[in-house]
């Protein structure tokens, strides 16, 4: 086995472990349906009924793809943050003494998280069907196309997080706060094109803004209200997303490895 093959093999093994764990834990599967139900059924339904009248497009449909982005992003971020919990119960030591690069460990976690996150999409679209939110099969295809990008971006922010925050509980709590802050500022559940002042600045600083916008660029292409729904061109969204993601992975991995070794 040459070095590259060994690294790839390790990535596959680490990712497969997360998939096996997911499949054996009924709680994860149940959560895949509960979260969309809460966000789309309760929060989304209420927003659509009370605020949706002002929009020229279906707010439920808008939210459907926002929830997809949020769930994939959050799920993968959590998957990477779980490295800290695994460190606390000593499991990560096994990985850290293996002759593989730290990037292989991190990428394995991200890919494992990405695959398991895709299961959560089943829940989102099942709830969409229940709520009679219209979507085409091509929309599902677009979502699947973009899902790896969203997952990697979420995982990348998770890496930066665990590089900076060394405590599992604190990282989990802060991660959840950051995700929900982004959900609102990035306009995943309702449009933020009318935001102004500091909220507008913050909105443009959130990585999730560009992910949500990229998703809407894909699924609302050709829609009569496309210009009202999207903020930037897909090229801008993609460039910002790739830039932030690469920066998070590199800086986060360096910080995480350093914090683990330089206690």
């Amino acid at each position, binding site marked *: 086995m040459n070095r590259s093959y060994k690294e790839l093999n*390790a990535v596959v093994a680490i990712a497969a*472990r997360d998939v096996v764990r997911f499949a054996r834990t009924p709680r994860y599967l149940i959560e895949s349906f509960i979260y969309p139900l809460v966000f789309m059924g309760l929060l989304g339904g209420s927003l659509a009924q009370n605020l949706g009248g002002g929009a020229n497009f279906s707010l439920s449909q808008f939210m459907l793809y926002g929830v997809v982005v949020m769930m994939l992003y959050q799920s993968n971020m959590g998957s990477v943050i779980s490295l800290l919990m695994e460190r606390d119960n000593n499991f990560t030591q096994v990985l850290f003494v293996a*002759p593989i690069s730290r990037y292989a460990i991190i990428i394995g976690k991200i890919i494992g998280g990405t695959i398991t996150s895709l299961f959560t999409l089943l829940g989102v679209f099942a709830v969409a069907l229940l709520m009679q939110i219209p979507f085409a099969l091509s929309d599902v295809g677009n979502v699947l196309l973009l899902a790896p990008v969203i997952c990697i971006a979420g995982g990348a922010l998770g890496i930066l997080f665990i590089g900076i925050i060394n405590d599992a509980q604190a990282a989990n709590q802060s991660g959840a706060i950051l995700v929900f802050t982004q959900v609102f500022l990035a306009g995943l559940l309702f449009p933020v094109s009318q935001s102004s002042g500091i909220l507008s600045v913050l909105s443009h600083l959130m990585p999730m803004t560009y992910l949500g916008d990229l998703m809407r660029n894909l699924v609302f292409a050709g829609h009569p209200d496309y210009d009202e729904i999207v903020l930037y061109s897909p090229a801008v969204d993609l460039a910002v997303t790739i830039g932030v993601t690469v920066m998070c992975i590199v800086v986060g991995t360096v910080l995480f490895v350093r914090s683990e070794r330089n206690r």
Partner: protein
Amino acid sequence: MTPIIQVEHLIKRYRKTEQPAVDDISFNVEAGEFFAFLGPNGAGKTTTISILTTTLAPTSGQVMIAEHDLNHQAHEIRRKIGIIFQKPSLDLELTAEENIRLHVCVQGLYTYTPFYRLMPAAYRHRIEELASIVNLGGDLFQPLKTFSGGMQRKLEIIRSLMHNPTILFLDEPTAGLDAESRASLWQYLLEVQHSKQTTIFLTTHYIEEAEVADHVCIINHGKITLHATPYQLKQRLLDRYVLVDAADHEQLKAELTSRGITFSTNGSGFKIPYTGPTPQDVIARLETPLSVLEIYEPSLEEAYVHLLNEGAAQ
């Protein structure tokens, strides 16, 4: 021959602490040696082993393992070492075999497949061989959640040996094992050491496990207080003596005096210290019929406790 582990002036100071956990220690371990690293809780054993196994960066000092510099060639070092950690480091959501499979795949020994039966025959033979040695053969495919602490320990032992490491680091490996399992494990580890010339680096609370070590290194408060063979350690630290007495107490006393044998008296008889490998020379010189003959050979544990008490008194 170059030592397989060379540690020079190693210092580790954790963040926000003034006292170093490891304070300027130096020692060598020869290839194929059984090296025991002893010390009380908090002495610096686990910190040292964490540095040697590349999971913790030293504050300063030089460490060479298998001719690789720890600070620059950690990757090469990881390929040559096996570790049993002090605390269990297994995934409880997986089966025992899945834990091992993950390990061999991240070690780069075998290509990952999602099913055991698709793994290469060499892997299946190796895991079955090791599992039978530690009596885990029938439990390999059970979820780890159902394993007792002892069974989990056995599994970690299998995992550490799967890739035939050049150096095996054992951080209190038998903690939680029953006496029978400990005995069979040590029998196997020593066989491995002899047949494959594996270097064993052990930290343990069971001092008797270090009796068979080639060298013992004692660390306390981050400093090495003694580095010797178990025999030298016992000889250096504690008196070895023969306790003798006779029905004719006075005659024996006169004989000891006339022959110039150094002795002291205690309630049970005459205490005669000896320095040779056995007390045979002392006993052979006595003609008075003996009614009491006891040979006092200190255990490593007694020597160790003595050393720690000495350190505490200072």
